[in-house]
């Protein structure tokens, strides 16, 4: 039963900001283990879709189901607890903290000694912190940042910060991870490594991945299915080959000056 049901389902999800309908009746489904792409020209409503799924905004109408449960309008931290985590297009790291501390904050979600234990520095609290630190180090290794564990996150390069965001999101041990333009600002070699990392996240960590990306080569090479938005509307959905040759998609991109 739970194998057959989609892990994430958007059912005519809609959000309006005043007169602007940023996301208009968008529906799509992700199955467990998918690497799913969300593309579209600038301002199409992709990031807003992520914000709806992660609870930053409440849908004006429509519903979002995660593992069969409606989650539209739940608080973002509740949704993270249910098992959806994300990265941010405009990188939002805890800048004054080190890389490993950033990841540990993600990791705190799944283990928790009561606050009193922390205040009194009880042995289990210390042990927990140690365990989380180790787990975080493993995740830093996964994204090739182990050597930067103690670096202040704000001082690292753009590409490293993006990878750190992925490690931090993974640390919450999500079922579904949302990546908002993870390859932006990366050089070709970094992109190649990222491609490999995302595949590992799916194959080795058994996560489902939803990715927004402008780099078409990257998206087409990575995703098995893609949904295309334009002006908040869903204009196409399907495997990469079908999307590439879809006249509506070509028009949406060519009609765009950018």
């Amino acid at each position, binding site marked *: 039963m739970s194998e057959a049901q989609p892990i994430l389902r958007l059912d005519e999800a809609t959000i309006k900001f005043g007169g602007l309908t940023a996301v208009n009746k968008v529906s799509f489904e992700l199955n467990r283990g998918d690497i799913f792409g969300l593309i579209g020209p600038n301002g199409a409503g992709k990031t807003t879709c992520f914000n709806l799924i992660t609870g930053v905004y409440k849908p004006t109408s429509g519903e979002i189901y995660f593992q069969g449960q409606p989650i539209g309008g739940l608080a973002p931290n509740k949704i993270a607890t249910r098992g959806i985590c994300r990265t941010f297009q405009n990188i*939002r790291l*805890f800048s004054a*903290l080190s890389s490993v501390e950033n990841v540990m904050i993600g990791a*705190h979600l799944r283990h928790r000694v009561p606050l009193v234990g922390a205040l009194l*520095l009880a042995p289990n609290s210390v042990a*927990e912190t140690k365990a989380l630190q180790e787990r975080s180090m493993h995740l830093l290794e996964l994204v090739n940042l182990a050597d930067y564990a103690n670096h202040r996150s704000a001082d690292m390069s753009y590409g490293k910060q993006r990878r750190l965001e992925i490690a*931090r999101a993974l640390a919450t041990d999500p079922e579904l991870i949302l990546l908002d333009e993870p390859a932006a600002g990366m050089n070709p070699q970094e992109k190649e490594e990222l491609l490999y990392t995302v595949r590992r996240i799916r194959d080795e960590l058994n996560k489902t991945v939803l990715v927004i990306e402008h780099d078409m080569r990257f998206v087409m090479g990575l995703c098995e299915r893609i949904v295309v938005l334009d002006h908040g509307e869903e204009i196409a959905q399907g495997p990469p080959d079908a999307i590439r040759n879809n006249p509506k998609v070509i028009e949406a991109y060519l009609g765009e000056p950018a």
Partner: protein
Amino acid sequence: MKSFWPVRLASIVGVVALCFALDRAVLAAAPAQYRLLILASLFVILAVSLNLINGITGQFSIGHAAFAMIGAYTAGTLSKNPAFASMPHPQLLAVMTLLGALVAATFGFIVGLPSLRLRGDYLAIVTLGFGEIIRIVTNATESLGGSYGMPVAPKVQFLWWSLLLMVACIALCRNLLKTTHGLTFLAVREDEVAGLAMGVNVTMTKVVAFVIGAAFAGAAGAVLAHTEAFISPRTFPMEMSFIILTMVVLGGTGSITGSALAAVVLFAIPEYLRTLTDAQGKAYEMNAGLFMGILVAIMIAVAASKWIQTNVHEKGKKLGFYAGAWLAVIPLGFLFQTILHLSPTLKTLAFGIDILRYAVFAVVLIALMLLRPQGIFGHHEIGWHWFRKRPVPATEGGAA
């Protein structure tokens, strides 16, 4: 891990013994300073507890004195109750401290609520307003003594108690930062949106910070009430909130040790200047001139160090440059003193006793904000790791 409880127990016993020993030592060697040291430790508590709210959790709260005031009036009112009044003094003080903390924590919860919706400047205005409301209401409440204030009986002055309280406050905050729990507080400070996305319960974290911060301020207030044996709205003026805030900002927002150190220094400076009489005028004028001169020289040395840090890369050369810059402080100080004394107007302007008290404060602050806006210690703690080579994250370090 197995040796945890014996070590913990030993360190607690050690701290208690140390507090008692200090208490006795001060009584024997400098009884005149006994009360001042109690007040200083209370200010450390106030600064460190505000640092939890402002520096660690990033909620811009001013008006911290109000929580101390609530604790003080709680103690002042309840200690009149015969059931408490008959207690031996140590028990009485302990109970009053606890009750002051509880009542202040309740108010902390209420003040914490707006922080869930308001950010930055707006929250600052609300907390400032809260502080003023508490003061004005007390001023107008006859049963609390109104503007005349209220005598608090019995007068209980225990340095050991305020020291213990201070250690507890510092230890709790420091423990917090050693665990992942503490990291979630820092996450709220750094980026709420990202924190939420990582599952941090931002609401809860903010309220907890306010409740704990207010509780310690309330405890300090209760001790203050019994130390002074008299409280009035004038004991807790708006300036007091600003001074506490200054201690936190000066020490480096987020740095516990920085806040504590800044609290001691900022408490000591005006107290020292207060002890000066006109009879000491001449000598004092010279000292003050030198003090101001050295202050200016230090500012220059800090600026120079910054320049050296970025521009000189060879290790030996760097060390020499640093030494030169800091050695120059003393002669430069004397030079500036001479210059100041050349002009009679500058002299009177700078060295009127009252003016100077504020001037020193202001100059220190301005200098700091110009040279090091993140506070003297920034987000860092003072500790043994300064002497280690490897950089250590906030969550690592020696246990207990």
